[in-house]
């Protein structure tokens, strides 16, 4: 009997093989190969992690706190998170059974989806959005269903658009406000309307609010602050953006006990626990880090004001985002597509901005500019964008 042996590629699970390589990957590779690029493409705070937090992490190694912790995370950190949730969002979560510390929000997202999705379940998510959502849904055997948001609404998610895409198979509504890449936030009426929508269609809500500390005005309106949603909400947050702790990889989930339990089943087998050192650092951030957040937020706020005013002055229409550290200007007035604009700006003026299409089809005609970079590079980038626009 003859057998045709498989090649390495054939061993890859079909549902994974079908997930396209991130469309933005090529662009990233080009940027990475360039020298002296001024990058507005970095979705990461430019601040060093506050020293007192780093110092605690170092001390925890010195003291030998380098063992596995409880799967859920250390009791002290969960208690501090419970206090933080109450203080920041008026939301009560039991530190013993309703809070789970994860390896960044990315892991939190993955275990949340895997805990609730059956094959074929549809997940509503809004675009433009963070690049990981649709792939993570597919990897959890769900079906991602994109819902567009628009410049005319300042990229807020509307129930009208959701109603167009909801079906009997819809199981989950996924939210991310303040939003990467647009900087959009939700008002109180928006969160209430989204809660009503979820209840009306009997959906679970997964809300990624990792940028919530970076809200500049209009108030923070969390899905966690809506009591009637409590039984159907998985709330995700992390330390990366608020305390500039991206490399610590520390996030957390708050959810009713049965859902936390379900996520815990996955987490305990695939992660065991988040890094003990990072958990010590996170505890320090929660206990002593409020002034750091205030100072960083003010600095981002000033840079936001600068870049929005400058881009509008250059004729690139740009709404004033109320959160995160991104602006999402339109380049439609130039007649170039997002991709053409970004490529030419990179090739001719060495400034990197990410084409809006990287974050979903409805990002066409826009660019994502991250202003989590020093004011001097920002000024230089604006100068160069101005020069580029004059050549068009």
């Amino acid at each position, binding site marked *: 009997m003859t057998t045709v042996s498989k090649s390495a590629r054939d061993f890859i699970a079909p549902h994974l093989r079908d997930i396209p390589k*991130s469309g933005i990957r090529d662009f990233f590779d080009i*940027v990475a190969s360039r020298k002296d690029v001024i990058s507005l493409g*970095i979705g990461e705070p*430019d601040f*060093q992690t506050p020293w007192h937090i780093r110092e605690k992490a170092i001390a925890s190694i010195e003291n030998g706190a380098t063992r596995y912790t409880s799967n859920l995370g250390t009791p002290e950190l969960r208690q501090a998170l419970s206090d933080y949730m109450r203080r920041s969002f008026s939301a009560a979560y039991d530190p013993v059974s309703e809070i789970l510390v994860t390896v960044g929000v990315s892991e939190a997202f993955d275990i949340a989806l895997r805990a609730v999705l059956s094959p074929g379940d549809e997940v509503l998510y809004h675009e433009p959005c963070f*690049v990981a959502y649709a792939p993570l849904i597919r990897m959890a055997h769900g079906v991602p269903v994109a819902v567009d948001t628009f410049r005319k609404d300042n990229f807020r998610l509307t129930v009208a658009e959701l109603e167009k895409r909801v079906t009997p198979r819809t199981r989950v509504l996924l939210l991310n406000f303040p939003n990467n890449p647009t900087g959009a936030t939700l008002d109180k009426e928006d969160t209430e309307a989204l809660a009503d929508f979820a209840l009306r269609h009997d959906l679970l809500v997964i809300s990624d609010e990792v940028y919530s500390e970076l809200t500049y005005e209009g108030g923070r309106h969390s899905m966690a602050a809506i009591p009637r949603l409590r039984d159907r909400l998985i709330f995700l947050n992390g330390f990366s953006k608020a305390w500039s702790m991206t490399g610590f990889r520390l996030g957390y989930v708050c959810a009713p006990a049965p859902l936390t339990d379900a996520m815990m089943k996955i987490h305990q087998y695939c992660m065991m626990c988040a890094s003990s050192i990072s958990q010590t650092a996170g505890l320090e951030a929660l206990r002593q880090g409020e002034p750091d957040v205030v100072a960083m937020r003010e600095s981002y706020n*000033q*840079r936001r004001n600068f870049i929005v005013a400058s881009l509008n002055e250059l004729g690139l229409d740009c709404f004033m985002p109320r959160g995160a550290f991104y602006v999402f200007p339109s380049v439609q007035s130039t007649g170039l597509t997002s991709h053409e604009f970004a490529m030419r700006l990179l090739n001719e003026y060495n400034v990197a901005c990410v084409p809006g299409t990287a974050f979903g089809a409805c990002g066409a005609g826009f660019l994502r500019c991250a202003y989590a970079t020093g004011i001097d590079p920002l000024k230089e980038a604006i100068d160069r964008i101005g020069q580029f626009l004059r050549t068009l």
Partner: protein
Amino acid sequence: MDPLLDLLKKNAREPDAVLAKELGVTEHDIRARIAAYQAEGVIRGFQAVLNPDRLADADVRAVIELRIRPEREGGFDRIASRISRFPQVESMFLMSGGFDLLLFVKGQSLQEVANFVSARLAPLEGVLSTATHFMLKTYKDQGVLMESEPHDDRLQVCP
């Protein structure tokens, strides 16, 4: 503190146009506010923060603890005012604790600073004692680290 003052503390050379955009006000407003702060004496000057260890002809610098006798009329202020007028004195503070005045003093050589202390400060009426500590290396000054934190090593783009 007024965010304008914060920004000026970080970089006093920032153009008014940039400050105006960062704070969401007009350039005229920025100029008026800075002028008002100067008139009120809130802003006393604008200086560069130098790293003496990188200067070829850096001054010798010392910290001097001074114990002084307060006067019946005027307490510490009159003698402090006299001492602060010496150009060698860069900064000076009235302190709580084991001594009264803390001086930051500069001179072209160790000898010059030593002379200043022995010939000018110590003999002053009301000065009880001096303790001079020479500075060896500057790690941080005016909130500015002399050795920068490591270069921005973030990935050039990330989602």
